[in-house]
């Protein structure tokens, strides 16, 4: 398994051609208290960089973008009842959706953990 990161503060963990997507700890810290999360329906086709999910803090709604293209295979239903999972465990139980990659080569442009940490430190 390999975990990649985007400059929009999503993480994507890849195993073969399937992947799990969420937002990073840095992102949840910036958003603050999460009160609502909307995940894409199974079967939704996502294109890299396009809107994939929505996360809402007390203050505002934010889009979660698809780190790569693919088809949604599962949404995290737990977020409907407990959106605060995104705050408490953003890079674990607070995942948003899983997808089947349509073009694994898109992963090449993403950051690894060390590069993402350096990117966040530069902000």
């Amino acid at each position, binding site marked *: 398994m390999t975990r990649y990161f985007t400059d929009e503060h999503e993480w994507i963990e890849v195993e073969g051609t399937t992947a799990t997507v969420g937002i990073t700890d840095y992102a949840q810290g910036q958003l603050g208290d999460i009160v*609502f999360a909307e995940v894409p329906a199974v079967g939704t086709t996502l294109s890299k960089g396009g809107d994939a999910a929505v996360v809402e803090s*007390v203050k505002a*709604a934010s889009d979660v973008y698809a780190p790569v293209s693919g088809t949604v295979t599962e949404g995290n239903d737990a977020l409907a009842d407990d959106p605060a999972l995104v705050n408490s465990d953003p890079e674990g139980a607070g995942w948003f959706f899983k997808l089947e990659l349509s073009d694994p080569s898109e992963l090449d442009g993403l950051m690894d953990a060390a590069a993402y940490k350096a990117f966040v430190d530069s902000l």
Partner: protein
Amino acid sequence: MSDDTDMLELPLGDWHRAKGARMVSFAGYAMPIQYEGIMAEHQWTRESAGLFDVSHMGQLILSGEGVAAALEKLVPGDISALKEGRMRYSLLLGADGGVLDDLMVTATPTGLYVVVNGAVKHQDIAYLRANLPAAIDINHLEDRALLALQGPKAVEAISRVIPGVDQLYFMEADLFLWGEVPLWISRSGYTGEDGVEISVPAEEVQALADALCAQPEVKPIGLGARDSLRLEAGLPLYGHDMDPSTDPVEGNASFAISKRRREEGGFNGADRILKALAEGPSRKLVGLSVEGKMPVREGAPIFAGELQVGTVTSGGFAPSVGAPIAMGYVAAGHNSIGTALEAEVRGKRVPLAVAAMPFIPHRYHRRAISSQAKA
């Protein structure tokens, strides 16, 4: 993230940063949106006492012979009847009766102390200058900061620092001395809770903020919680829930049109406003309860079936309600309490119901009715 460089600095800017605040641009100033988190800060204010820096707001003293009568041309409240140390909420009206700002007016020994919104304070001052007689002085107190201490334990906490504040009732104000520092303190606020607002010389505000935060009941609270608290309290935010296109009756502020003024008129837009009072406004600002968990925010259209009947002007998650709530303008015929409507959010319909405001009961420290009569 906002760019720090084009924001103006308030006297407590570095104090907020040292307390761990995240700063954002608001009304042109760098201001704290949150410290530990909006939800926790909101709850703390409802249960204890929160200290808010609202130094961006405009503090004015209007003075001169006949100042109350002069201001009454521009506001629909009975300013002439205000006794010293009493305050009221009012609305600055454009020539057509549209709301240019909402404000607080207090009668003081030196004139009318008026607090206006930060985002429009400079245009308010220009408007007042252009529309008040030359004999009326407008003094913009730019050397004063403004703090609000709000919550059920606010008055207990501040009275330990400044004895006697607990003698004020809701919408009363007086001059207090903190050592040698003159403070103008009113029992008022923007959260629905008991509490006070404190006008303090800018050079003393940091020491006062420290003295208040040294009380165990008090924590600093950011603008994020200020917004969720005022929304639950059903209090409008100027520029969102009211603007120059709305009149006071539409804006659910008929209470601010005093009895004598209703009878006599003589204020900007009186024809339009008194007609709306008599016949009912064509649309009205109402509370909206939201079904489910998805927040419905400013700008969302409101529908009755296929017909758009309104627009949300403020909305978000309400921590003390435990659900999303909103405010918005809804057309006559669709705005009575309990009416089922829908908002549209990202292409989906969300069920709403017109709700009574406030969403959380006000807990003001009012005088008994019996004592109001002689006060």
